[in-house]
């Protein structure tokens, strides 16, 4: 009885908190986006500046996520398959973007590639433009989302150990063969999970991009920056309309993430069943399930 009350109480608290902090902002965005009718909504999201911002945002996301995925795979491989001096230092350095304010992230790129930055003479000699153009936005986004993929992969690779890879290597398999045949199947869900998180963050990055963007309308305004622009133009409804597009993308990402998670967990669970089956007979699972179901009643 007391248990039931505690359970209900906790669930109510959890749901109320989630509803307040997660549900309400979503509802607010949706309500405000549509408060002046569909016409205004459609006009806002089909505005050429909005569309070009969307294009820029998508392009930035694709580039930075691809770079981070490739990097994440190599980094995770290097960090989990080999032991070398300074490995923990490297891990810590890779985590820096996680702990650094996006504003500082933007600032450092300005300090390197900006007109006053120390790389400026080289860039102007090469007639290359980094900050206040696409490369700068991409770089800032890569920085902010840098550790996402590798952070998801490293624990999984660590947990699997190196026995399988070593066995394959002893049989003479090449590095690529080992990776694609042995390693990738184990980490594919974690990889997808990391890629999704990385994309979500890349799509929505504001602070760092805001510093390096220059806010050129139709050129270097990403969608989140465009929201700010609209917000400042008395176009509150339009700002929320564009926000709602970003929100939809966010929700889609979350759904995708959940699907990946569930699929990944299922495969993980069946692996556990195999393991258990070998040790104690497959029926042990039935008892295990029984216990779990029993205790949650």
């Amino acid at each position: 009885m007391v248990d039931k009350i505690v359970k209900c109480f906790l669930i109510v608290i959890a749901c109320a908190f989630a509803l307040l902090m997660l549900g309400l902002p979503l509802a607010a965005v949706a309500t405000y986006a549509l408060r002046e009718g569909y016409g205004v909504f459609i006009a806002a999201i089909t505005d050429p500046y909005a569309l070009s911002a969307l294009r820029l945002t998508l392009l930035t996301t694709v580039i930075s996520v691809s770079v981070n995925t490739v990097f994440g795979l190599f980094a995770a491989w290097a960090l989990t398959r080999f032991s070398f001096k300074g490995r923990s230092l490297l891990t810590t350095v890779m985590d820096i973007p996680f702990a650094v304010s996006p504003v500082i992230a933007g600032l450092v790129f300005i300090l390197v590639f900006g007109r006053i930055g120390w790389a400026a003479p080289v860039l102007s000699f090469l007639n290359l433009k980094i900050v206040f153009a696409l490369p700068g936005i991409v770089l800032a986004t890569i920085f902010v989302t840098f550790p996402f993929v590798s952070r998801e992969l490293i624990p999984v690779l660590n947990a699997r150990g190196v026995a399988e890879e070593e066995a394959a290597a002893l049989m003479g398999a090449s590095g690529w063969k080992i990776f694609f045949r042995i390693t990738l199947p184990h980490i594919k869900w974690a990889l997808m999970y990391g890629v999704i998180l990385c994309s979500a963050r890349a799509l929505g990055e504001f602070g760092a991009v805001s510093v390096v963007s220059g806010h050129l309308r139709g050129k270097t305004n990403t969608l989140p920056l465009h929201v700010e622009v609209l917000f400042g133009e008395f176009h509150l409804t339009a700002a929320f309309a564009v926000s709602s597009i970003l929100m939809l993308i966010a929700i889609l990402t979350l759904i995708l993430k959940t699907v990946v998670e569930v699929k990944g967990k299922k495969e993980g669970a069946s692996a556990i069943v195999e393991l258990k089956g070998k040790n104690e007979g497959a029926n042990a699972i039935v008892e295990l399930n029984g216990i779990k179901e029993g205790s949650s009643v």
Partner: protein
Amino acid sequence: MSDHVRLEGINKTFGGFKASDGVSFSIKEGDLAGLLGPSGSGKTTILRMIAGLERPDSGDIYIADKRVNDIPAGKRGIGFVFQNYALFRYMTVGDNIAFGLEIQKKSKAFIKERVERLTKITGLDGLLSRFPEELSGGQKQRVAFARAIAPEPRLLLLDEPFAAIDAKVRKELRTWLRNTISELGITCVFVTHDQEEAVEVADNIIVTNRGKVEQSGPPSAVYQNPATPFAAEFIGQSEVITEYERLRGFPKISGFQSAVIRPEFIEIRKVGREERPNASQSGVAENIYFRGDRLEIDLLIAGMRVTAKYSMDAESLSPGETVSVVVNRLLLLGEKTVTAQENSLLNDANPIYI
């Protein structure tokens, strides 16, 4: 002595899975009882219901003649040793053992003394300030045991107590556990899927299958006179044969479609060395395995392949050799009954129905 634990008509389902199906049995005070059955037979569920970790759907559980269905687990005065010990990782060995005593609000001095005494009994001296992850499997087992008996329960439950321990330590722990429990004089129920373990440790075993109690009694009785076809097949090194009438001395008895044969039922002799030629028939020793104290033989007899033993002291056999075989006994299996059938050519004794 009176019954300490009594279960009456217990039913329990998990989803669609019937874990307990009309389970009734009792355990005498001071008994060491083993719940024996294959995995998934519902033995752990029974143990957890006695402990109060699960509630039966119907039926009554009595401990010391008091119905305990509605008494929460912590108030039943039961010690429980979990299969994976469930030691508290963030407490030292000493804190683990003292946990139950602290809850009973015993004095510091009392707790200290009791913990020290328990560490002596369990041979954990010097390990009190260690954390569980710094212990070996056997040591963890002892800590779990000490923790469970620290509050002086009158009933101790153990879930697969030796499953996670390697074979060599297991033997030693079994003997130790048996002696310690009998010294403490408490009633004890343990769950196992290992019949050797059950037979060796328990005063009484309760054989379970598919949520039902098949048979209970002292190990020797269950072994020699199994009450149900399942008990007959499950206990011992049992093999089921269908055409038992092809063995000499075993006419077909209607209602008994098959029989259980165990190695100790079969007597093998070299050809020409038969003691009772009238009951003998020939067989082939196909493979011979060395088992340390004896030889184990894959025997082909009347077209059936069975396992037999052969003494190391007897004249040696070679693989493929034709031998003379006498089958002394069979356990004939009926629909729901079992009967021990002696070889009719050996004496005139009538079959004994159990």
